[in-house]
């Protein structure tokens, strides 16, 4: 056996061990969250600690769905997330298409300037956005919250879509126009279907950004009518008491559906994020 042949399996073993460590490190908090959500209150801090519950209970989930504002907050989160995804795709597709297809002076500078928005800390944007949303009478509404979430999603998604469209040969659109279609027709019949996986990825990205956003949601939703799930999660921690069982159950409710959707659509997300990556 040569030295290199010996090294190759050793390297593979070390790689797998390293990956296993990273996997455990990443999944351990999630496993703990799920098991804790099924534990009765007196078991959560029991000594010695146990990973799995001795007495499995659904009380924490019952509490989340019947004694808190979490169900309404989850609906709000879905509504806001879908609005953000839809609005992001409308705005960013328009902007990304223009930046990719139209040659005008300063196009690249404009594209770079849009990306600057991604670098500004959210706390800096808080007050001006609050004043704008207040003037529009959209405070404490899901639409108002979706509007401010666009400041997070628009810069990056515009770039994502710009690159995706730049990767589609313009000759395909020209062919559609030669066949008698308008520019709009060329976009809706040719460009959109080709860019669809990338747009799906961009929409998912926008939805996820909105889904877990806390700072804006905690300030712009003043009452429970527009409160989203990450903010509702704080209700389980009152001034002197943290209901860990309910907090974990609510966290499971908040994360698991998104993880399932993500796993189901991950091939689109990866494909969408990497398409056009080599052309810009």
């Amino acid at each position, binding site marked *: 056996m040569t030295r290199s042949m010996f090294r190759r399996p050793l390297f593979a073993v070390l790689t797998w061990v390293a990956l296993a460590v990273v996997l455990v490190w990443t999944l351990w908090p999630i496993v703990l969250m799920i098991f804790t959500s099924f534990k009765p209150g007196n078991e959560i801090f029991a000594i010695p600690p146990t990973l799995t519950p001795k007495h499995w209970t659904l009380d924490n989930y019952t509490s989340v769905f019947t004694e808190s504002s979490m169900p309404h907050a989850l609906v709000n989160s879905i509504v806001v997330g879908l609005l953000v995804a839809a609005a992001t795709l409308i705005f960013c597709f328009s902007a990304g298409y223009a930046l990719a297809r139209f040659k005008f002076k300063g196009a690249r500078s404009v594209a770079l300037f849009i990306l600057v928005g991604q670098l500004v800390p959210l706390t800096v944007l808080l007050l001006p956005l609050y004043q704008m949303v207040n003037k529009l009478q959209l405070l404490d*509404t899901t639409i108002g919250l979706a509007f401010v979430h666009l400041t997070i999603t628009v810069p990056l998604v515009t770039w994502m879509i710009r690159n995706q469209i730049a990767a589609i040969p313009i000759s395909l659109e020209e062919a559609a126009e030669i066949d008698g279609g308008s520019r709009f027709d060329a976009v809706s019949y040719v460009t959109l279907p080709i860019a669809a996986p990338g747009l799906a990825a961009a929409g998912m990205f926008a939805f996820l950004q909105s889904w877990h956003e806390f700072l804006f949601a*905690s*300030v712009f939703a003043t*009452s429970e009518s527009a409160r989203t799930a990450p903010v509702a999660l704080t*209700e389980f*921690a*009152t001034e*002197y008491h*943290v209901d860990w069982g309910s907090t974990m159950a609510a966290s499971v409710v908040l994360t698991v559906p998104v993880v399932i959707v993500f796993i189901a659509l991950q091939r689109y997300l990866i494909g969408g994020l990497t398409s056009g990556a080599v052309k810009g």
Partner: protein
Amino acid sequence: MTIRPRTTALLAAVAVVVLGVVGVIVFNTTRSSTDSSNTVTWWVPDWDWDVATTLVQQFESENPSLHVEMVKTTGATVANKVSVALDAGNAPDLVTESIARTKTYIGKGQLADLTSLYDDKMPASDFAPGLTDTLSVDGKTYAVPYRWATNALIYNTELFAKAGITTPPTTWAEFIADAKKLTTSTVAGTAWPMQGDPSDLTLRFLDFALQNGTTIENGTPKFTADSVQQALQLMGTSVTEGYATKSSFELDNTGIRDLFLQGRVGMYLGGVFDADTAAKQNFPVGTAIAPGPSGPGVQEGVGWTYIVPAKAENLDGAKKLASFLGRPENMASLTLTFPARVSATQDAKFQTDVRKAYGEQLAKHSIPAPNDPRWTAMIPFVHDTIQEIALGSKSPQEGASAIMAQAEKNLGGAK
């Protein structure tokens, strides 16, 4: 030129979204313009919600022309929410806020003058010593404090007996000696809240510093190098020497209470809610005045207050509600700790066995915590410095030098 079906559908979808947003804006504008001026909006923290709801019903029956709209806030969101709303000039009529943050709002001219509320029925002299002073500037008082509390020593009587400790410690030296006696492989002598809100840890640090030369003048701490070093020495070395649990780095106030209730922490400086919780569970709990360098130690008072934004839409209604909530019986029913008014402390719920030490601590050995925004800005630095000393990466002397330099820069120098 004809437009093909898919293009039409796309344009229609965009039009629907735009029309939907415009529709909501028009609806909200119409709704807000018809709002009654007889409404008082009150932002209430979730822990006060149930009792506040009952009190509001009573207030509305006394003032039939007024309707109170309550909005629930949470501990994790209230600071940002109030600050942004006040900065934008779009605040509610009445807000329950932390006393520690109130001076910042007063400094920005964002609060209404509530001096006129302090009359024969609600004299300023009935409030805890120095409390209304911390909420006043140039003779005008801008808030009505309603709850007030300090930390005191909470200890496990069974663990004390097991360790042969007959009385709770009254001095720092006794505190350290007892903590060492209590420490075993499964029990820590004491613990500090090094996780969570940084002000929980710095409050304890400042409590120790105040007992040894540091003072608070007009809401601003005036440090002495020696007192800072002593305080850091006590807290930092307790962890490095092992009689305070190393899990302090992962604990907030609630975490310490949970460990105490499992018999894993022998004693700690904690709030009255912790003592009440332990007593309710028939846990072997005792309470005592916090130890000081050579006798009873000073603890800072912290609490919550009612503020009325200067730009409140219903200023008169908000003042009426603040005055109503400031009645002794209403303060007593709403507070989880101690009421801000001395006359309200006569209520039986403040006279239980475990609360006696807290009552004495508040009455004889407490001062209002600093509320200077410059100190608030310094808290994360002090918090991190204490952690560094507890980790052993910095000595108490180095930590004291760093804090003194920061105080010189932020607060305008030491004493």
